[in-house]
């Protein structure tokens, strides 16, 4: 019993330690940002005050932060899910694009009542993106092609494929570089909220759907036999195979689910915010930011939610610093530093260990 409670303590200590170190990394990142702001000749306190006001001072701002965070929750979850099962999904960007494109196509060409249209668009996009992710899994399990290489290449294929489709007559709105808008029946806006917050705010049901999906993924990963298989393969492929788990199928399934999540992000972005897809010269970064979100969130589904909000808040609120002349790039430096400190918090851990060792040595003497 004594051993039990001791181990419990140790366990809760470790969990807290991760949380503490993450928070510490965020503070350190903000300090680095403050340093840069000071060096550029501005007042960091003033800048950060503006940022906080830019997030919290009006309901409208909070709404925009949430809108920013929504796709990041899902792309972050996509990356985190793959990480948990031993894969690095750098292809969330491409899967996001495929999800968005499919949503725009189904949302424009189908004409259905909203009760059918919304789920069909969402499911269709998820399915398409799952297939896109599944290709990576297939290439890995069948030919041993590393998922990072395959998914980076598929990102570019997705981008140019979307640009090509948009340029087809009948889909492209004449005189623009974008597609026609999807029908009202395929949108997930919340009209009454819009009346409260102002017409420009694109509040939508996306955040609710994203939170529900996060809970489903948590359940799938930790409470079901499928999650058991996927995580076993991620931790130790050899033992999983020895235990009778079909490793190749697990890799494909895992990449398909990761693709589905990033695709859902793309679909909801079209259904709730942009209502169309536009020709892109470069990637928008929702998928790539998902990697950072997953990293800061410690690959934990609920950690991902918090980290997506942090990310959304920093990028949205951070842009308000411009009013006193601080370049928005500073906020990228802050985010970059946070990631750097999170990724290297082994250094802090090492300092902690060193500290403990010194204490021990004193006890011995």
């Amino acid at each position, binding site marked *: 019993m004594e051993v039990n409670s001791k181990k419990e303590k140790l366990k809760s200590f470790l969990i807290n330690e991760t949380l503490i170190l993450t928070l510490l990394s965020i503070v350190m990142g903000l300090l680095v940002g403050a340093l840069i702001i000071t060096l550029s000749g501005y007042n960091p306190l003033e800048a950060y005050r503006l940022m906080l006001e830019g997030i919290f001072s009006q309901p409208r701002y909070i709404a925009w932060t949430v809108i920013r965070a929504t796709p990041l929750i899902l792309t972050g979850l996509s990356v985190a899910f793959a990480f948990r099962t031993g894969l690095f999904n750098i292809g969330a960007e491409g899967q996001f694009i495929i999800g968005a494109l499919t949503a725009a196509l189904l949302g424009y060409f189908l004409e259905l009542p909203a009760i059918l249209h919304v789920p069909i668009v969402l499911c269709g996009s998820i399915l398409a993106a799952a297939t896109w992710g599944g290709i990576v899994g297939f290439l890995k399990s069948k030919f041993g092609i590393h998922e990072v290489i395959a998914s980076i290449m598929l990102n570019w294929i997705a981008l140019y494929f979307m640009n090509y489709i948009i340029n087809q007559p009948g889909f492209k709105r004449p005189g623009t570089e974008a597609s026609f808008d999807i029908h009202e029946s395929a949108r997930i806006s919340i009209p009454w909220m819009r009346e409260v917050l102002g017409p420009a705010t694109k509040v939508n049901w996306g955040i609710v759907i994203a939170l529900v999906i996060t809970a489903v993924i948590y359940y799938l990963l930790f409470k079901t*036999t499928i999650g058991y298989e996927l995580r076993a393969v991620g931790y130790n492929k050899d033992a999983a195979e*020895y235990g009778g788990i079909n490793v190749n199928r697990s890799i494909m399934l895992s990449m398909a689910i990761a693709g589905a999540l990033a695709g859902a992000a793309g679909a909801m972005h079209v259904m709730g915010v942009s209502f169309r897809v536009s020709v892109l010269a470069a990637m928008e970064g929702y998928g790539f930011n998902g990697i950072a979100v997953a990293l800061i969130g410690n690959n934990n589904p609920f950690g991902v939610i918090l980290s997506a909000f942090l990310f959304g808040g920093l990028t949205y609120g951070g842009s308000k610093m411009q009013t006193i002349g601080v370049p928005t790039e500073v906020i990228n430096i802050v985010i970059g530093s946070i990631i750097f400190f999170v990724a290297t918090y082994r250094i802090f851990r090492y300092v902690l260990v060193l500290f403990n060792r010194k204490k021990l040595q004193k006890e011995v003497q």
Partner: protein
Amino acid sequence: MNTRQRNIDFDTPMIEMKDIVKKFGDFVANDHINLKVHKGEIHALLGENGAGKSTLMNILYGLYTPNSGEIWIKGKKVEVKNPNVSIAHGVGMVHQHFMLVKPFTVAENIILGMEPTLGFNRINMSKAIDDVRQISEKYGLQVDPEAKIQDITVGMQQRVEILKALYRGADILILDEPTAVLTPQEIKELIAIMHNLTEQGKSIILITHKLKEIKAAADYCTIIRRGKRIDTVEVRSTTENELASMMVGREVSFEVYKEERQAEDVVLKIENLVVEDNRKQEAVKGLNLEVRAGEILGIAGVDGNGQTELIEAITGLRKIKSGRIFINGKDITNKTPREVFESGVCNIPEDRQKHGLVLDYTIAENMVLENYRKEPFSNGIRLNFPQIFSFTEELMEKFDVRPRNKDLKARSLSGGNQQKVIIAREVTNDPDLLIAAQPTRGLDVGAIEFVHRSLVDQRDKNKAVLLVSFELDEVMSVSDNIAVIYEGKIVGMVNAKDTNENELGLMMAGGGHNGSEQ
């Protein structure tokens, strides 16, 4: 048995470790340990796994710094900050896993890092070869300096490791579990080499948990248990049983008690099996074998003669090139691991951390590695954790897995307890055929007793057991019948009661009675 002339010079202490304390967090790995080794002495360090003997030697070699205590080498107090310091003071260590560059020659490996050079940093290879010849003759360690490491036997590779240490001027050699990979004949040769070295004034510290070798080789033995030095004894006047009970802390038995019984129907039948290894070379070359219900069949052989590939082929982890495998008359050739498992085959794998366990899963999660999809552990979709937990707690009680905490990660268990988790899981499946590959590797005497008991219990339930081990003693004491494997074939089949170490050793080296058939 240890009748040689002793060469100890009691006036010249080579190593003195005084009051060494080493802590890892709250865990005390070395608790005020003292050790004294004289010139010309072979000093054994005996202890169970995790007792702290390797920690102590890593401190001496400079891989760890102690929390307190002093190290004196050749009468001088030394602060051993890193291995360079210990090497400079004449301490050499031969690790259990060799650190050799395989495509390099023997001489190239020995001089690595201290190459004799001509001008412009060119290596003086002829001098290197001469030097190696010289020290190899001086200490009676015959090697061919120009042979490549990949072409010589494991025993030879070990000599190269020893020569490497001597070339760096070592007077004190630490040998970490040196016999784990050797045949009985090679072990005899190694012991002769060790005695030879002490005649030349070298001192040797031998880390081991094999009592027989201590009796055969060492002068003194320090026993460590749970981080504490229990005693230092003169080996000559101490029996193996006394050593064992000091190591474990209670009386132990080496005998595996089992009643006579008649083997029954054939459970496993292998016909002309051919299996390739990872380099696409044939590792199993037309092997035939039968294992019957109520029989423990031991496979004796030196590592690398096709044992691993044979087991992987039976369990479905490796594709079979030709030949067939039957379980109870049912063909399981090239079936998936799950299909093989469902046919009644369970396996205690050779590499418990690679195949046997998902180290980052909890004990509970590991307990259902094969059965997680079945009732009552799940309904096919949702895992039933209360059932998994109560099952795990029951098995942990029954198989005495410590600490008794199902939520611990498998990684944090000791080797012996990890093995208990695997055995609990596999034996509880009640397979018709239980395959045990190296089931006691790295385990201490107490745990070994337990593993052997489990295998015999299985046999007594009229199940078939296939035991593969590189420890000849284990094969001889546990098995009913012994098959000797050499270069991918069974070269001899004997009854365990009617054979001896010499006969088996000869067959293991390829000189068996049926070995000359081709």
